[in-house]
């Protein structure tokens, strides 16, 4: 028994060595995620593989800790440094805790970028945001307006009155309202990210504004509750619920027709773009500096701001045509 184990181990190591030797020419890009086994990141890995097969000479190492801790990620990154990978693209569990380890990686000549959840500036060469506040603000009103060619009344169901993200997105939305003539925001209410309060607020909106055409909820709890309220009020088809939500949580609302479409970043595109950026930076055909543009294959290119971070794209729109592909992913 013992001998057999030994034999198998030896064989495994030998295979590993041969495999390593065979792909020695390939650029090795490590995609480090917050934790393994999370649908969102599995999807990102899928995108990274897509980028790798497009580029040809790239090997993806998809890795991460088993739970979402900074300590676990530090361990993983240390072992990647020991393996001398060419690039590390990390979605960080902690903004600051990873900085010393990632600095060490950069000193060894490894390209380091962060994506999704960023690292402090000194710990990475650039950071890729899934989207930007102006893009999100524009997207949420666009989703509602696209269904209202003749114009109409829309209302916003937000999280709490003090939710920073939601307030910024609503501000950005109000800035671009002039691009959508005929669409009027009649009210902004707050569901406090509680299912029952959001449901009640959505019901209240439909009562106060009988001609309401759409509810925009830029929060995942709110959009689900609003969709349920619309179904229960029998207003499917009259009131369209849209905003930001996750496909797994919104699949029921799309199915019932309460929501025609909603948006959130696409993890596949995100993993794809992060890999593309890491490749170009590591290859040296792009530089990470304020104002620089880095190509991202089919996603176009990202332009970096003064903190060396950039936004990938508009949030991705989900509707009846693609919800089935994503509802089991995240």
């Amino acid at each position, binding site marked *: 028994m013992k001998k057999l184990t030994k034999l198998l181990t030896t064989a495994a190591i030998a295979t590993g060595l041969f495999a390593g030797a065979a792909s020695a020419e390939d650029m090795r890009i490590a995609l480090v995620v917050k934790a393994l086994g999370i649908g969102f990141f599995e999807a990102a890995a899928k995108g990274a593989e897509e980028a790798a097969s497009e580029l040809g000479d790239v090997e993806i190492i998809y890795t991460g800790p088993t739970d979402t801790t900074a300590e676990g990620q530090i361990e993983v990154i240390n072992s990647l440094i020991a393996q001398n990978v060419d690039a590390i693209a990390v979605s960080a569990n902690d903004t600051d805790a990873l900085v010393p380890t990632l600095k060490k990686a950069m000193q060894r000549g490894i390209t380091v970028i962060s994506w999704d959840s960023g690292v402090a500036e000194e710990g990475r060469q650039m950071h890729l945001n899934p989207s930007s506040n102006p893009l999100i603000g524009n997207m949420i009103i666009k989703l509602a307006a696209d269904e209202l060619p003749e114009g109409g009344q829309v209302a916003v169901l937000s999280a709490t*009155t003090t939710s920073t993200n939601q307030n910024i997105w609503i501000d950005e939305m109000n800035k671009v309202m002039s691009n959508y003539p005929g669409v009027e925001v009649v009210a902004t*209410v*707050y569901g406090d990210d*509680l*299912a*029952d*309060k959001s*449901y*009640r*607020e959505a*019901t*209240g*909106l439909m*009562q*106060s504004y009988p001609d309401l055409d759409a509810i925009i909820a830029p929060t995942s709890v709110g959009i*689900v*509750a609003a*969709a*349920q309220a619309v179904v*229960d009020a029998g207003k499917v088809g009259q009131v369209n619920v849209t905003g930001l939500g996750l496909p*797994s*949580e*919104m*699949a*029921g*609302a799309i*199915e*019932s027709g309460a929501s025609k479409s909603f948006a959130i970043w696409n993890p596949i595109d995100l993993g794809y773009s992060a890999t593309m950026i890491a490749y170009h930076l590591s290859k040296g055909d792009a530089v990470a500096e304020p104002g620089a543009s880095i190509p991202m294959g089919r996603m176009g290119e990202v332009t970096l701001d003064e903190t060396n971070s950039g936004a990938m794209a508009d949030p991705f729109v989900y509707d009846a045509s693609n919800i089935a592909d994503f*509802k089991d992913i995240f």
Partner: protein
Amino acid sequence: MTLLKSREAILVGAILLLLALVASRFPGFVTPSNLVAVFTDTAPLIILALGQMVVILTRSIDLSVAANLALTGMVCALINVSFPGVPVPVLVALALGLGALMGAINGFLVWKLTIPPIVVTLGTMTIFRGVIFLLTNGSWVNSHQMSAAFKAFPRENILGLPVLGWIAVIVTLILGLVMSRTTLGRAFFAVGGNPHAAVYTGINVGRTQFLAFVISGMLAGLTGYLWVARYAVAYVDIAGGFELDVVAACVIGGVSIAGGIATVGGAVLGALFLGIIKNALPVIDVSPFWQLAISGAAIIIAVTFNSRAGRSKGRVILKSAEHAQ
């Protein structure tokens, strides 16, 4: 005179006044169909307030009701996802049982280990939420994963009122019977009114408190299923902070926090009062920044009434005793 002074009469008056105020700004609120909707929306609060009333009556408090609700709701949702064939009555029985079990844990700790109820239930509140996290790793159970029958049950309309509302009515009737017609019901009053005297009459104070927690837990469990089915979503934080609404409904309903004084009617009316405010605020166009302040002020005004009513009653008794001498 006594009718006017009774808490229920004052509350009914306050509720009518509130409805009139809301109607003056938004007439659609007092249409029968909307009132039914408001009652249905308030049903979970009524059910929980009745359970809480029994606990507070015995000089205890149950802060774990919302967490119990969330855990039971999540378990029901998970069962429904894994075994969509399990019929709803079985799930309801399971919810009642699981809720009662969690209530029994509270009750046992209070009874056998004589830990103060507020400490016990603060602890179990966190534990129950933690268990949901362990069960799900923080992920949600969503609408499309639940079976149609699972979601339809509380919405089923019988004689114009959804099942959710009927359950609140039935729970009210049962509790009304238990409190007024059974020895257990009288024991709750005795334990809260004067525990020492209760012991001399042969009532086991700890055991009575234990049973109060079981009732409260059982009702929280029942509400757990109804809640998850109604909002068609289950996650760690559902009904976060709802235990405070439940206690507030009791206090508005004239349940004395010191124990010994409570009525089923009061608890129901207290819950309705709070439910009407919650449902009215979104439609009367009040700034969201004011909504919390208004809810809070309503509670304090109700409690002020409460303590004033209690005090004057005491004086009257003393005076009449003086006159008698």
